[in-house]
């Protein structure tokens, strides 16, 4: 689908582990593997949707891609520049190209700064505009996101949730970024405002040629805005595919379960929908199960799933999945594994180790 286009963001084997400290001397006793070995690309001008249930590492992944965390391992290339191991000081100069819209519009704006000051601050830090030009730019941005210019000197608490999110978007746009991570920008808003904000984001994308990484747990919203969708489960991407392919033909059992959970507006169809109800809870990211992360809840689990972590590979052009069911190198896995629990072939052990 987007084969010939330029890759703006290339993420390879990204890992973000948070240390768990304990004991009297506060030694590290473990790690929460919030993002564990994630690989994906985002093409210029597209929207990559990232979906998954709460706690699966979507937000951490988004923040890690922008290096708001010091990542544990992996490489991140944005517009050809490797930023995975860059120091925060060097990163500051690159911040204008990559921005973020945060989840909670209430908390993410400094309560003691006026809207004008919030939007103008990145311009002061990175731009060379004089005071008057800067104010004009602030007004321009407020117009772009549909905020009344007269509100420039008000404080964030004086705005509604939707308006605050617009402030957040204007702030992110201030430096003409190429790439914006939208971290559940609509989760804290009611449905009518969600539509407004999503439409605004789409409109801005067309106008300024933006590239989005759109993190959400709202599957229908992602279907609406995203060109390609990545499904995350317990710190890993289990499936990554163009929107149509993913929604009509989900390959991974977890994606199937997720898709079957989307509410159907037509009650006649809704009554006949067969939902796949997953049993049990998401395992702790501090102690993920051996083998495939999903093996504890997968309705189609096989013996091999408990032993080997499936590799994330391209099944169809542009359609990646990490599941032993779709293992092209092991054509009869499904039946043999179902019946006999056949031992994996040697190449799988290697793949499992590599993964």
């Amino acid at each position: 689908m987007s084969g010939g286009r330029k890759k703006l963001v290339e993420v390879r084997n990204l890992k973000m582990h948070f240390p768990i400290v304990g004991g009297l001397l506060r030694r590290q006793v473990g790690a929460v593997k919030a993002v564990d070995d994630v690989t994906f690309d985002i093409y210029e001008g597209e929207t990559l949707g990232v979906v998954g249930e709460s706690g699966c590492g979507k937000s951490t992944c988004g923040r890690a891609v922008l290096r708001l965390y010091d990542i544990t391992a992996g490489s991140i290339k944005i517009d050809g520049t490797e930023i995975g191991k860059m120091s925060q000081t060097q990163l500051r100069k690159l911040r204008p190209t990559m921005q973020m819209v945060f989840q909670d519009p209430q908390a993410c704006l400094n309560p003691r700064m006026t809207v004008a000051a919030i939007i103008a601050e990145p311009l002061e830090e990175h731009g060379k505009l004089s005071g008057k030009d800067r104010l004009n730019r602030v007004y321009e941005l407020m117009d772009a996101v549909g905020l009344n210019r007269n509100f420039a000197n008000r404080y964030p608490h004086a705005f509604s949730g939707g308006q605050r999110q617009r402030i957040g978007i204007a702030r992110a746009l201030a430096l003409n970024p190429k790439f914006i991570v939208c971290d559940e920008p609509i989760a804290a808003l009611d449905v009518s405002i969600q539509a407004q904000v999503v439409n605004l984001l789409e409109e801005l994308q067309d106008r300024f040629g933006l590239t989005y990484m759109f993190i959400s747990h709202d599957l229908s919203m992602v279907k609406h805005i995203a060109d390609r969708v990545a499904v995350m489960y317990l710190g890993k991407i289990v499936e990554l595919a163009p929107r149509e392919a993913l929604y009509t033909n989900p390959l991974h059992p977890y994606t199937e379960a997720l898709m079957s959970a989307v509410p159907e507006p037509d009650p006649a169809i809704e009554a006949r929908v067969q939902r796949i109800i997953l049993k049990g809870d998401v395992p702790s990211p501090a102690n993920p199960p051996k083998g495939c992360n999903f093996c504890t809840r997968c309705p189609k689990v096989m013996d091999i799933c408990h032993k080997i972590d499936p590799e994330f590979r391209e099944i169809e052009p542009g359609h990646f999945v990490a599941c032993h069911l779709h293992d092209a190198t092991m054509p009869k896995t499904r039946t043999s594994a179902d019946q006999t629990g056949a031992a994996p072939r040697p190449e799988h052990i290697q793949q499992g180790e590599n993964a």
Partner: protein
Amino acid sequence: MFTYTLRRLAFAVPTVLVISLIVFLMLDMAPGDPTASLPLTIPPEVREQIRAALGLGEPVIVRYFRWLQMMAVTEPLHMIAAATGWDIAPAGPRILSWQTRSPVGDIIIQRIPQTLWVVGLGYLFGILIAVPIGVISAYKQYSWFDQIGTFVSMVGFSVPTFFTGVVFILIFSVWLGWFPSMYDTTLRVTDWDSFMRQVRQIVMPVAVLALFNASQISRFMRASMLDNLNQDYVRTARAKGLREQTVVLVHVLRNSMIPVVTVIAIGIPTVFTGAIITEQIFRVNGLGDALIRAIYVSDWPMVQTITFIFAILIVLFNLIADVLYGILDPRIRYD
């Protein structure tokens, strides 16, 4: 905001009046007699005459209103007259100290500069030490700096000033001989030499007060910083690509200062009362010293007046703290 302040000031008047009545009545009903310290050889009828001469012959309510009138009108006018040289001081009687027979207002005027210098500097240095310690402690939470800072502030907070004061005297005056143990109020700063002597004698009382105040304020500062450092808007500031210095000092510190500034404002009058002990230890003849001496000799007019001044300060600084909160935090508006 302005109307709010006016309304609060109007409400403060009855509060202060009730406090003045309670203070007056409590001292009036307290056991002890202003003539008790006079020689026992004085016959009872002379004693009665002395009491009458002190104005104790009249009913308590009459004495209260007379004191109140002098406290509210006569004494302030005398103070203004003394300060500006205008001829506005009324002729009538003034609140007289029973021990010295001189007007209480004059004594307080004499005493205030010492208290302001010692206590004020102690508080100022306390704040100046506390804010950076609190900021660094919070920014590097659980580091060695934080552990030591937390420990020192815990010690400074839990050890009373009458103990630290004596320890300071023992170490720096008795053993090391660096600083004098007594504060000499008669010292006039005229040249470099006398200035250095003034510095040397003020170091210890200021240090004792600064340590105590700093340990309190640095705890508040640290807690407030920690509260704000994890807020989402700090991440936003980092995502904007601001310098770490700007993130911490502009975004986090400014927001953290809101509760701390009000704590500092509320703390100012308690510092005045708290200095009673420190002034006693270092023989600083300030307001606290005057209060303690007046209590010893049952000099009720003096005690009533100083206590009342403290009460006014507490009410006033509470109001200032509330108004400051409204100014600093745009989310809070009083009307």
